[in-house]
Protein backbone atom coordinates (compact mmCIF):
# COMPACT_ATOMS: atom_id res chain seq x y z
CA UNK A 1 0.00 0.00 0.00
CA UNK A 2 2.83 2.38 0.87
CA UNK A 3 4.52 1.70 -2.45
CA UNK A 4 1.30 2.50 -4.31
CA UNK A 5 0.79 5.77 -2.44
CA UNK A 6 4.36 6.87 -3.17
CA UNK A 7 4.04 6.01 -6.84
CA UNK A 8 0.97 8.28 -7.13
CA UNK A 9 2.64 11.27 -5.41
CA UNK A 10 5.89 11.28 -7.40
CA UNK A 11 4.33 11.85 -10.89
CA UNK A 12 2.07 14.56 -9.48
CA UNK A 13 5.08 16.45 -8.08
CA UNK A 14 7.01 15.96 -11.29
CA UNK A 15 4.11 17.33 -13.37
CA UNK A 16 3.85 20.38 -11.14
CA UNK A 17 7.55 21.08 -11.44
CA UNK A 18 7.40 20.53 -15.16
CA UNK A 19 4.55 23.00 -15.54
CA UNK A 20 6.41 25.58 -13.49
CA UNK A 21 9.49 25.11 -15.66
CA UNK A 22 7.42 25.40 -18.83
CA UNK A 23 5.68 28.53 -17.53
CA UNK A 24 9.01 30.08 -16.61
CA UNK A 25 10.42 29.19 -20.00
CA UNK A 26 7.40 30.72 -21.66
CA UNK A 27 7.77 33.83 -19.55
CA UNK A 28 11.44 34.25 -20.47
CA UNK A 29 10.75 33.52 -24.11
CA UNK A 30 7.93 36.06 -24.22
CA UNK A 31 10.11 38.63 -22.50
CA UNK A 32 12.99 38.01 -24.90
CA UNK A 33 10.72 38.38 -27.92
CA UNK A 34 9.18 41.55 -26.54
CA UNK A 35 12.54 43.10 -25.80
CA UNK A 36 13.77 42.19 -29.27
CA UNK A 37 10.70 43.73 -30.88
CA UNK A 38 11.03 46.90 -28.79
CA UNK A 39 14.70 47.38 -29.63
CA UNK A 40 14.12 49.85 -32.45
CA UNK A 41 12.19 52.19 -30.12
CA UNK A 42 12.35 52.42 -26.38
CA UNK A 43 11.99 54.76 -23.46
CA UNK A 44 15.13 55.85 -21.62
CA UNK A 45 13.52 58.64 -19.60
CA UNK A 46 12.18 59.94 -22.94
CA UNK A 47 10.83 57.86 -25.79
CA UNK A 48 13.12 57.71 -28.81
CA UNK A 49 14.32 55.53 -31.62
CA UNK A 50 13.34 54.28 -35.04
CA UNK A 51 9.60 54.58 -35.69
CA UNK A 52 8.11 52.55 -38.53
CA UNK A 53 4.62 53.98 -38.44
CA UNK A 54 1.89 51.94 -40.08
CA UNK A 55 4.15 49.48 -41.87
CA UNK A 56 7.73 48.23 -41.74
CA UNK A 57 8.00 48.20 -45.53
CA UNK A 58 6.30 51.29 -46.95
CA UNK A 59 9.39 53.52 -46.99
CA UNK A 60 7.79 55.89 -44.50
CA UNK A 61 9.65 55.93 -41.19
CA UNK A 62 11.02 58.31 -38.60
CA UNK A 63 13.91 59.07 -36.31
CA UNK A 64 12.21 60.51 -33.25
CA UNK A 65 13.12 61.90 -29.83
CA UNK A 66 10.35 62.99 -27.51
CA UNK A 67 10.69 65.81 -24.98
CA UNK A 68 11.28 65.60 -21.26
CA UNK A 69 13.79 64.88 -18.53
CA UNK A 70 15.38 68.33 -18.81
CA UNK A 71 16.72 67.90 -22.32
CA UNK A 72 17.33 71.26 -24.03
CA UNK A 73 18.61 69.94 -27.36
CA UNK A 74 17.51 66.89 -29.32
CA UNK A 75 18.83 65.44 -32.53
CA UNK A 76 17.30 62.74 -34.70
CA UNK A 77 19.08 61.64 -37.87
CA UNK A 78 18.37 58.93 -40.42
CA UNK A 79 20.99 56.81 -42.15
CA UNK A 80 20.44 54.26 -44.92
CA UNK A 81 23.04 51.63 -45.72
CA UNK A 82 25.33 53.50 -43.34
CA UNK A 83 25.06 56.84 -45.14
CA UNK A 84 23.46 59.97 -43.71
CA UNK A 85 20.25 60.89 -45.57
CA UNK A 86 18.79 63.61 -43.37
CA UNK A 87 18.08 64.71 -39.86
CA UNK A 88 16.96 67.39 -37.51
CA UNK A 89 18.02 69.32 -34.42
CA UNK A 90 15.50 71.06 -32.16
CA UNK A 91 16.12 73.32 -29.20
CA UNK A 92 14.15 74.14 -26.07
CA UNK A 93 12.45 71.72 -23.75
CA UNK A 94 9.04 71.20 -25.34
CA UNK A 95 9.61 70.40 -29.02
CA UNK A 96 9.71 66.86 -30.34
CA UNK A 97 12.48 65.94 -32.76
CA UNK A 98 10.75 64.15 -35.62
CA UNK A 99 12.65 63.42 -38.83
CA UNK A 100 10.50 61.79 -41.52
CA UNK A 101 12.18 59.70 -44.20
CA UNK A 102 9.97 60.73 -47.11
CA UNK A 103 10.82 64.38 -46.61
CA UNK A 104 14.45 63.48 -47.42
CA UNK A 105 13.82 61.18 -50.38
CA UNK A 106 13.05 57.54 -51.05
CA UNK A 107 15.05 55.12 -48.95
CA UNK A 108 15.01 51.47 -47.95
CA UNK A 109 13.26 51.16 -44.60
CA UNK A 110 14.84 47.91 -43.46
CA UNK A 111 18.37 49.14 -44.26
CA UNK A 112 17.95 52.32 -42.23
CA UNK A 113 18.92 53.43 -38.74
CA UNK A 114 17.90 56.26 -36.45
CA UNK A 115 20.68 58.12 -34.63
CA UNK A 116 19.24 59.89 -31.61
CA UNK A 117 20.55 62.30 -29.00
CA UNK A 118 18.97 64.18 -26.10
CA UNK A 119 21.18 66.53 -24.11
CA UNK A 120 21.60 65.52 -20.50
CA UNK A 121 19.56 62.35 -21.03
CA UNK A 122 21.45 60.08 -23.41
CA UNK A 123 24.32 60.38 -25.85
CA UNK A 124 24.06 59.80 -29.58
CA UNK A 125 23.31 56.17 -30.32
CA UNK A 126 21.82 53.99 -33.03
CA UNK A 127 18.48 52.24 -33.34
CA UNK A 128 18.13 49.80 -36.21
CA UNK A 129 14.94 49.10 -38.11
CA UNK A 130 12.83 46.37 -36.57
CA UNK A 131 13.18 44.26 -39.72
CA UNK A 132 16.86 45.10 -40.12
CA UNK A 133 18.31 43.99 -43.45
CA UNK A 134 21.38 46.25 -43.70
Amino acid at each position, binding site marked *: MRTTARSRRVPATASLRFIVV*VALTGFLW*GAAVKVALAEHYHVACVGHGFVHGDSTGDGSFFARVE*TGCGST*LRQCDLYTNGSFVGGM*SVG*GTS*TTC*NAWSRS*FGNYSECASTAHDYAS*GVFSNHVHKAHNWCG
Partner: protein
Amino acid sequence: MRRAIALLVLMIAATGAGIAAASTLVSGEESFEQAPEHLLPGPAELMIGAHAPGPRDAPEWAVRTYVGRTGLLCAERGRLAAGIFGDLGRDGELEPRPAGPTGTCGDTGREPVVAGVERIAAQGDAPASTIVFGASLSRPTGATVLPAGGEPVDLPIGARGSFIAVFDGLREPQSLPLEVTLADGRTLRFAWTAGAGEP
Protein backbone atom coordinates in the same frame (compact mmCIF):
# COMPACT_ATOMS: atom_id res chain seq x y z
CA MET B 1 -3.75 8.51 -22.12
CA ARG B 2 -6.21 11.01 -20.61
CA ARG B 3 -3.55 12.03 -18.13
CA ALA B 4 -1.04 12.69 -20.89
CA ILE B 5 -3.55 14.84 -22.79
CA ALA B 6 -4.37 16.79 -19.64
CA LEU B 7 -0.67 17.38 -19.05
CA LEU B 8 -0.21 18.57 -22.61
CA VAL B 9 -3.10 21.02 -22.31
CA LEU B 10 -1.67 22.28 -19.03
CA MET B 11 1.74 22.75 -20.62
CA ILE B 12 0.30 24.80 -23.47
CA ALA B 13 -1.81 26.88 -21.10
CA ALA B 14 1.17 27.51 -18.84
CA THR B 15 3.33 28.55 -21.79
CA GLY B 16 0.64 30.91 -23.02
CA ALA B 17 0.24 32.40 -19.57
CA GLY B 18 3.98 32.90 -19.30
CA ILE B 19 4.15 34.66 -22.65
CA ALA B 20 1.14 36.83 -21.84
CA ALA B 21 2.59 37.82 -18.48
CA ALA B 22 5.95 38.66 -20.02
CA SER B 23 4.29 40.65 -22.80
CA THR B 24 2.32 42.68 -20.30
CA LEU B 25 5.33 43.37 -18.12
CA VAL B 26 7.81 44.16 -20.87
CA SER B 27 5.62 46.35 -23.05
CA GLY B 28 2.18 47.77 -22.44
CA GLU B 29 1.50 48.47 -26.11
CA GLU B 30 3.22 48.47 -29.44
CA SER B 31 3.27 52.26 -29.56
CA PHE B 32 5.76 52.34 -32.42
CA GLU B 33 3.04 51.22 -34.80
CA GLN B 34 0.60 53.89 -33.68
CA ALA B 35 0.83 57.55 -34.51
CA PRO B 36 1.02 59.52 -31.24
CA GLU B 37 -1.85 61.91 -30.63
CA HIS B 38 0.38 64.90 -29.99
CA LEU B 39 1.94 64.67 -33.46
CA LEU B 40 -1.29 64.06 -35.38
CA PRO B 41 -3.14 67.04 -36.87
CA GLY B 42 -6.27 68.13 -35.06
CA PRO B 43 -9.38 69.58 -36.66
CA ALA B 44 -7.83 72.97 -37.42
CA GLU B 45 -6.68 73.61 -40.98
CA LEU B 46 -3.21 72.65 -42.15
CA MET B 47 -1.72 75.89 -43.46
CA ILE B 48 1.05 76.41 -45.97
CA GLY B 49 3.17 79.26 -44.72
CA ALA B 50 6.56 80.74 -45.47
CA HIS B 51 8.47 79.47 -48.48
CA ALA B 52 11.89 79.84 -50.06
CA PRO B 53 13.31 79.23 -53.56
CA GLY B 54 14.24 75.65 -54.42
CA PRO B 55 17.44 74.55 -56.13
CA ARG B 56 17.50 75.30 -59.86
CA ASP B 57 14.10 74.44 -61.38
CA ALA B 58 12.98 72.26 -58.47
CA PRO B 59 9.89 73.10 -56.38
CA GLU B 60 10.23 75.65 -53.61
CA TRP B 61 10.90 74.78 -49.99
CA ALA B 62 8.00 75.55 -47.69
CA VAL B 63 6.69 75.25 -44.16
CA ARG B 64 3.28 73.78 -43.38
CA THR B 65 1.78 74.20 -39.92
CA TYR B 66 -0.96 72.47 -38.01
CA VAL B 67 -2.26 72.24 -34.47
CA GLY B 68 -1.92 68.76 -33.03
CA ARG B 69 -4.74 66.87 -31.35
CA THR B 70 -3.34 67.73 -27.93
CA GLY B 71 -2.94 71.41 -28.79
CA LEU B 72 0.73 71.51 -29.76
CA LEU B 73 1.85 73.74 -32.61
CA CYS B 74 3.51 71.69 -35.35
CA ALA B 75 5.70 72.79 -38.24
CA GLU B 76 6.92 70.64 -41.09
CA ARG B 77 9.25 71.40 -43.96
CA GLY B 78 8.38 70.21 -47.45
CA ARG B 79 8.28 71.24 -51.10
CA LEU B 80 5.76 73.52 -52.76
CA ALA B 81 4.55 73.76 -56.36
CA ALA B 82 1.32 75.16 -57.74
CA GLY B 83 -0.01 75.57 -54.22
CA ILE B 84 0.52 71.89 -53.39
CA PHE B 85 2.66 70.95 -50.39
CA GLY B 86 4.45 67.64 -50.61
CA ASP B 87 7.62 65.69 -51.26
CA LEU B 88 9.56 64.70 -54.35
CA GLY B 89 8.91 61.17 -55.62
CA ARG B 90 11.39 58.88 -57.32
CA ASP B 91 10.65 60.54 -60.66
CA GLY B 92 11.23 63.99 -59.23
CA GLU B 93 7.55 64.88 -59.36
CA LEU B 94 5.87 66.47 -56.37
CA GLU B 95 3.68 64.09 -54.40
CA PRO B 96 1.15 65.70 -52.05
CA ARG B 97 1.94 65.00 -48.40
CA PRO B 98 -1.04 63.56 -46.55
CA ALA B 99 -1.91 64.87 -43.11
CA GLY B 100 -0.07 62.77 -40.57
CA PRO B 101 2.40 62.74 -37.67
CA THR B 102 5.10 64.33 -39.81
CA GLY B 103 5.63 67.65 -38.07
CA THR B 104 7.90 68.72 -35.26
CA CYS B 105 5.60 69.83 -32.49
CA GLY B 106 6.01 71.99 -29.41
CA ASP B 107 4.04 73.34 -26.51
CA THR B 108 3.71 77.06 -27.16
CA GLY B 109 2.34 77.52 -23.67
CA ARG B 110 5.82 76.75 -22.37
CA GLU B 111 7.93 78.06 -25.26
CA PRO B 112 6.32 80.38 -27.81
CA VAL B 113 8.43 79.35 -30.80
CA VAL B 114 8.71 75.90 -32.40
CA ALA B 115 11.90 75.75 -34.46
CA GLY B 116 14.40 73.30 -35.84
CA VAL B 117 17.30 72.81 -38.21
CA GLU B 118 17.05 70.14 -40.86
CA ARG B 119 20.03 68.75 -42.74
CA ILE B 120 19.32 67.00 -46.02
CA ALA B 121 21.92 64.92 -47.83
CA ALA B 122 22.47 65.29 -51.57
CA GLN B 123 20.39 62.86 -53.57
CA GLY B 124 20.82 62.44 -57.32
CA ASP B 125 21.03 65.89 -58.84
CA ALA B 126 19.66 67.54 -55.72
CA PRO B 127 22.40 69.23 -53.67
CA ALA B 128 22.72 68.93 -49.91
CA SER B 129 20.92 71.61 -47.92
CA THR B 130 20.55 72.86 -44.37
CA ILE B 131 17.23 74.44 -43.51
CA VAL B 132 16.20 76.56 -40.53
CA PHE B 133 12.45 76.70 -40.07
CA GLY B 134 9.73 77.11 -37.50
CA ALA B 135 6.52 78.82 -36.46
CA SER B 136 4.95 80.73 -33.59
CA LEU B 137 1.45 81.71 -32.53
CA SER B 138 2.85 84.74 -30.68
CA ARG B 139 2.80 86.93 -33.79
CA PRO B 140 6.52 87.05 -34.54
CA THR B 141 7.59 90.32 -36.11
CA GLY B 142 10.97 89.09 -37.26
CA ALA B 143 13.16 86.02 -37.59
CA THR B 144 16.86 86.23 -38.34
CA VAL B 145 19.52 83.59 -38.90
CA LEU B 146 22.99 84.70 -37.89
CA PRO B 147 25.39 82.47 -39.87
CA ALA B 148 28.83 82.13 -38.34
CA GLY B 149 31.12 84.45 -40.29
CA GLY B 150 28.32 85.66 -42.55
CA GLU B 151 25.74 88.38 -42.87
CA PRO B 152 22.46 88.05 -40.92
CA VAL B 153 19.63 86.63 -42.99
CA ASP B 154 16.17 88.05 -42.32
CA LEU B 155 13.34 85.62 -42.96
CA PRO B 156 9.88 86.60 -44.19
CA ILE B 157 7.09 85.64 -41.81
CA GLY B 158 4.26 83.57 -43.26
CA ALA B 159 0.96 82.14 -42.06
CA ARG B 160 0.84 81.03 -38.40
CA GLY B 161 4.07 82.89 -37.79
CA SER B 162 6.07 80.49 -39.96
CA PHE B 163 9.54 81.13 -41.37
CA ILE B 164 12.17 79.26 -43.38
CA ALA B 165 15.71 79.80 -44.61
CA VAL B 166 17.74 77.47 -46.84
CA PHE B 167 21.53 77.22 -46.86
CA ASP B 168 23.74 75.31 -49.27
CA GLY B 169 25.50 72.18 -48.07
CA LEU B 170 25.42 70.32 -44.78
CA ARG B 171 26.11 72.77 -41.98
CA GLU B 172 26.39 72.31 -38.28
CA PRO B 173 23.26 73.68 -36.57
CA GLN B 174 25.45 75.63 -34.15
CA SER B 175 26.74 77.67 -37.11
CA LEU B 176 23.20 78.89 -37.84
CA PRO B 177 21.80 80.47 -34.66
CA LEU B 178 18.28 81.84 -34.93
CA GLU B 179 16.65 84.85 -33.30
CA VAL B 180 12.89 85.33 -33.31
CA THR B 181 11.30 88.58 -32.13
CA LEU B 182 7.70 88.43 -30.93
CA ALA B 183 5.00 91.07 -30.99
CA ASP B 184 5.40 91.63 -27.24
CA GLY B 185 9.03 92.65 -27.79
CA ARG B 186 10.69 89.49 -26.56
CA THR B 187 13.53 88.07 -28.62
CA LEU B 188 14.21 84.34 -28.37
CA ARG B 189 17.53 82.91 -29.40
CA PHE B 190 18.16 79.35 -30.57
CA ALA B 191 21.85 78.52 -30.41
CA TRP B 192 21.30 74.78 -31.06
CA THR B 193 23.63 73.91 -28.23
CA ALA B 194 22.80 72.03 -25.07
CA GLY B 195 21.84 74.18 -22.13
CA ALA B 196 22.87 77.65 -23.29
CA GLY B 197 20.82 80.33 -24.92
CA GLU B 198 17.71 78.26 -25.55
CA PRO B 199 14.30 79.85 -24.94
